[in-house]
Every structure is written in C-alpha cells, then in structure tokens.
C-alpha cells in the first residue's frame, strides 16, 4: 500500500473545539479529506480560543494545532440555501461528525434519520457530554467538569491532597480517539455490506471506560481506590510505584521486587519489608525509599537500577526531553506554513504505516477558504458569501 489507508474518503466535520476535531485530524492524517463545516460568523469557536495568547494568523495557534490538514466550508445551517448546499455535500460524503448539544442537529434537520435519507451509506458520528437521555444531558460537556463527575480526580496526586484533575483535556481526547475507532470499524462493515451506521459517544462513557481497571476493581471490592500518602503513582499499585525526589532531580520507579530493590540501592531499612507487604505497608515503604533516594543524585541511582534492569527512568521536562537523541530520532515535530506565511511547529500523527511516519504540511484552513473550490468541484451553483 503506497497510499494512505483512508484515501478517497470524505468527512464532513460539524464538530468544534477539541473532541470531534481531534478525531477529524486523525482521519485526515490517515488519508481522509476532512471538510470543516463552519458558521460564517467566527467559524469553529476554537479559532478565537488561544493559549498563552499565541496566534498563527487570524486564528489561534490552538486552532491550527487541531485543524491542520483540513478544508473549511462556511455555511449558515439556518439559511435554506446554505442548507441545500450542505445536503448536496452530504450526498458525496462518507462520514459526518458533530459534537453539538442534544437537539441542535435535529433543529436544523441534520439528525441521523434525515441525513440517512439523503445518503444511506453515511457513517454518522456524534459526541455528547453525558449521552442523549438522563438528568445531566443539558449540562455543559466540559472536560474538567467531566473529570470531576466521573471519579477520575481521586486517582492523581497524594492521599491528603484535594481531588486533583489531570492537567490536560483527557475527556475530550479519549472520546475523540474512541470516535475514530467507531467510525473506522463502521467503514469496514460498510465496505462489506453497503450499510451506514450511527456511532454515538459521550465524554462521560469515554472517561468511565478509561477507568475500566479501577472501576472493575471497585465493583469487586466495594472499596474506593486509595492514593498513597506520598509518591502516588497509580492507586491500584503497591510500593514502590511512583516518582521520587533525589539529591538533584526526580526518578520514577515502577513495579519491582522490594528486596531486590533494597539490595541494589543498598537500603537496609527497606529490607525489613516483604514483597507481600507492598500494599499493606505501601506508605511506610515509600517513606523509607524516599528518604534514601534523597541522598544521592538521579544518575547515581539510575546507573545502579538500569544495570539490573529495574524498571526506572529519569523524570524529564520538555526542555530536557527535546534535547535527547531518543526524542530527536522519533521526528515527532513537523513544520507547517500558515496562510500568512508564518511557520508553525507542531506534532505529527503518532501512527506509522508500512514503516513510514505520516507527515502533512497542509495548514489549517481560513474560514470558508474552500467554499469556492468545493462548489466548483461538486458542480454547485450558488456560493455562500461569507462576508454576509
């Protein structure tokens, strides 16, 4: 296979912000043609959402990160002429994605049943916050709030700390990732049967699935997961699993036999514990270990540990990591030129196909950039004027 696996597929992305658009980006990197359907006024709300006030052109660097390698078609779904154009696009499309709140697509007549009538082969994928039914279905499907509602905040940081969220949008990300899986599996079935599909996800179900190990353990034991009092790594795991300060930095130690560890790092105080104590005396073991590791620099410990194949690693920040040969040889970075000529460095797709890294230098589109070319290509007469 010399071409990308999804070459020839057309995805219409009505999604905004991160969850849906991150799925669109993956499909684009795997070869699909992704067309963002954006409202003429402002477009995807993420265009005006910046972090650290960084802008690529008229749109934020954040928008460019999530929406590179896509096209943009501006259309007002409440305008009958525009809606006709969209319905024509749907005839040609393979996949539709959206992450509107429940009811929005129904109101404009682009719910699954209506879209299916236009194109029975369509894969229609949608993301909500909490599913379509139930008492929370009109609550904001925002990442931090979903982390807080699903118990996730009791997994990270130490026992006496406040509930602590993941410092990144895990709910949006994991839900977008899972939507890609659903869409691709539905495309495989369609290839055999000609049948389209409805694929539904919610941030809440995605985050519960993400905690499946913890939840299965909780269902069996009835006991809440407990973070360790120091150096908590994962509430399910015994000592020494965690990150420890050393004389000059931090090291991580994963699963390891406690007596072997005691011998290798010459810590006699640790040798009083047995392997079967690593849950019962988790905090005590971690305390002894922490005090011992503070006495020498990271390099001292890592040399001893790695020589014995003990699962350990230095804790790096991005400045340290990006100087490492192990990072550079991955070639995770790629450079893209924005519409105004600005160079942007961003990450590439994490999946390699047939030994090839997947790069794409196609920038994020300006709002409505492809209205004309798409209309011409599809033989559509009227061109919506984004100035209006």
């Amino acid at each position, binding site marked *: *296979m010399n071409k990308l696996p999804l070459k020839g597929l057309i995805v219409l992305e009505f999604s905004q912000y991160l969850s849906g658009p991150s799925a669109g980006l993956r499909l684009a990197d795997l070869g699909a043609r992704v067309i963002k359907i954006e409202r003429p006024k402002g477009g995807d709300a993420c265009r005006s959402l910046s972090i650290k006030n960084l802008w690529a052109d008229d749109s934020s660097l954040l928008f460019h*990160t999530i929406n590179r390698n896509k096209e943009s078609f501006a259309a007002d779904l409440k305008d009958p002429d525009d809606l006709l154009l969209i319905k024509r696009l749907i005839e040609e499309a393979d996949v539709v994605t959206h992450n509107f709140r429940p009811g929005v697509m129904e109101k404009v007549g682009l719910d699954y049943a209506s879209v299916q009538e236009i194109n029975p082969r369509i894969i229609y994928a949608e993301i909500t916050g909490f599913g379509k039914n139930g008492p929370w279905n009109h609550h904001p499907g925002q990442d931090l709030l979903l982390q807080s509602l699903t118990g996730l905040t009791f997994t990270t940081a130490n026992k006496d700390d406040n509930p602590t969220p993941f410092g990144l949008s895990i709910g949006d990300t994991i839900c977008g990732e899972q939507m890609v899986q659903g869409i691709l599996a539905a495309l495989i079935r369609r*290839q055999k049967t000609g049948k389209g599909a409805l694929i539904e996800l919610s941030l809440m179900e995605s985050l519960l699935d993400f905690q499946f190990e913890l939840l299965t353990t909780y269902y069996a034991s009835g006991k809440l997961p407990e973070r360790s009092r120091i150096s*908590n*790594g994962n509430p399910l795991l015994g000592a020494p699993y965690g990150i420890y300060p050393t004389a000059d930095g931090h090291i991580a130690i994963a699963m390891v036999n406690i007596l072997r560890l005691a011998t290798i790092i010459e810590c006699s105080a640790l040798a009083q514990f047995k392997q079967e104590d690593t849950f019962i005396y988790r905090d005590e073991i971690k305390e002894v270990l922490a005090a011992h590791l503070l006495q020498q620099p990271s390099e001292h410990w890592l040399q001893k540990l790695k020589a014995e194949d003990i*699962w350990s690693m230095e804790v790096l920040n991005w400045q340290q990591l990006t100087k490492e040969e192990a990072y550079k040889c991955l070639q995770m970075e790629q450079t893209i030129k924005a519409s105004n000529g600005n160079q942007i460095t961003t990450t590439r797709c994490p999946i390699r196909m047939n030994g090839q890294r997947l790069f794409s230098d196609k920038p994020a589109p300006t709002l409505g950039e492809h209205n004309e070319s798409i209309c011409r290509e599809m033989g559509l007469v009227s061109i919506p004027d984004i100035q209006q």
Partner: protein
Amino acid sequence: MKLLEDIIVIDFSQFLSGPSASLRLADMGAQVIKIEKKGTGDICRQLYVSDVVMDGESSIFHAINRNKQSYAADLKCAVDKERVLQLIAKADVLLHNFRPGVMQRLGLDYETVKAINPGLVYAEISGYGSEGPWKDLPGQDLLVQSASGLTWLSNNDEREPTPMGVAIVDILAGTHVAQGILAALYQKAISDEGSLVQVSMLESILYFQFEVLTCFYNDGHQLPVRSSINNGNPYVAAPYGIYKTAEGYIALAMTNIVVLGQLLSCNTLINYTDKASWFNNRDEIKTILAEHLLTQTADYWLSILQPADIWCAKVLDYDTLAKEHAYQLLNMEMDVKTTNGLTIKTTRCPIRVDGQILTSEIGAPLLGEHNDQIEKQFDIVC
C-alpha cells in the same frame, strides 16, 4: 451484523497496551485469540496485580481480557510454532508488544509472516520506537509518563512532578494501534493488501500533549507553569480548578471572574475587571476564591452557579457517582462469566452502534482454554 464480524485477531500482546486494543476490537465483533506462553500465560495474569484477586488472577487481568479466547503455545517448540503459523495464515490481524527484536528471534517478524499471509495487518507497540538510544528500555506506563514531560502538568506548582494516576500511556498507545489496525483493515477490505502498523508509547503520549507541546515549540521553549493553588491546567486562567467547600468539592471551568464574584457575593473578585489578570494573577484570584468557597457547602454554591449557567460541577468519587441516576442510566456496568463460573462486574465498550450499547458476557479465558476449539475451527494439522 457487528462492525468487525468475521475479523480474526491473533494477539501476542501482554499487560495493558496491546490487550486494551484487542479488547476494543473484540467488543466491536472481532474474534480475538490470545497466544499465551504455556504454563504462565500473559504476565498480567500474575505480575501486574492489584490487591484484588479473583479466581487466582488479578481483577485487572479480567477487566482487560474478557471477551477473548486463549491459545497456549510454546513458540520455541517447532510443533507449536507451526500451529501458530497456520493460525496466522488465516488471520486478519496480528498484534504484539514485545521489545524490539523478540519477534525476529521467534521468526514471526513482519517480513516472514507477510510471506505466509500478504493480506495480514501486522501491528506492534513498542516503548520508544525501534530506533534510538532508548529502544531497548522497558515500555512501562509510569516510566514513559516520566520521560515525556507529562508529569509537569498535573498538581500544584511547588509540588513534585505528578504522574496521572491511570495507565494513560498504555491506554492511548492501545487506542492508537487500534486505529491504525482499523484503517489498515478498511484498506484491506478495498484492496486485499495488508499493512504494517507501528505505534510507540512515547509517540502516543507526546501526541496526547499536542496542544501544549505545540505551544512550547512556538513560544521559545517555555516550560509550563502549574498554578500554585488548585491547578487544573497550567495553560488555563483562573478559576479553572477544583475547590474545597465547607462540605465536599466543586470544580469550576472557564468563567468570567467578575460575574463569578457577583454570583458568589465575593466582592474582592469583582475588582478583577481586566481579563488579562485572570491569567496573570491566577494564583491570587484562586486564593481569594478558595477561601471564600470554604464558607458554604458544595450544594449551596452549585444551587447558585448552575442556574446561572456557570460551568461548574460537584466532585464525585465512585461511591457518590454510582448513586447518581445519570450514571445508572448509562448502563456502563456489565456482568461477565468465566468458564469456572465466576461472575465479574466490569464496564462495557463506550461506543454505541446504531443506537445499541455493545455488551458481551464472555469473561476472560483460562490459559489455553480454547486450544482444541481453535485447532478445529482453523483446521490446524500437525
């Protein structure tokens, strides 16, 4: 028809990253056959243990390996290997997460296997890729989190680097490899051609940070600064974070600080009219807010904030979550049964297809439980 009906996956992977990918494929309808070492099986059966044991194996093994079959084989024994090769010849997908070089030594590398089955989708997960100075290091979740810079995003500024308390690297690498497999299967359905799909845990967790890493690449390599109080995300302004109240905790997402001050009757906050200060004076604002929220219960604050459409929520643990109607209605829980008669409650696949949830009551297999059945199904001779 299930989405992945008739797809056959031969899964050599262990622990979580690979097996979580094959679990998803199984839930969407694929037949997943775990190839396990005779005698011990997937290391996860014993080594990767929580302190909750079921049927002699960890709760985690059961959660990850339900809805799969087990074929026990000694890959160093010629007869067993021949049998496995016959299986591979009829499979759609092969998945493994051995360290680089192991499959070559076993004679099961892509080039060799492709000669037997050119339509095969061959997928592998490594820790750090197959090149570079870290390629032979153990691909373990906490260690990859630590190497990737991820531990500087959660928890407060003066605190130690803090790992995310779920095996996020394993799960994301599994998700990415499942995507690669599915994209390749789609192509195979069109052209009959197989593919090689490769994912590394480091690349997966770097990609997870794509928004903030892109920021770092383009802002002159400035490191993230976590807020020193109630950090929610190093790149987001106040009040973003979780706050203690007189009873319970509440989460506050992006919100106008002045409006928030008015609603909560917190007069000091009303003075922060300059939007830039919400980020620049983040710690100051959060400190004021944190003190103020301590004066009343979570329910009290939510009764004011929710009707005003402020992005807020109560912070729940599993006990309180399980009592919520919103949780119960999702039907996320499902019982699976093992051959030994053990019933285990676990979670279902989060993807709904054609309006239906995907469930399966098949529990994790016993080691080698399906050897005979599989040899019959695939007409294995030798």
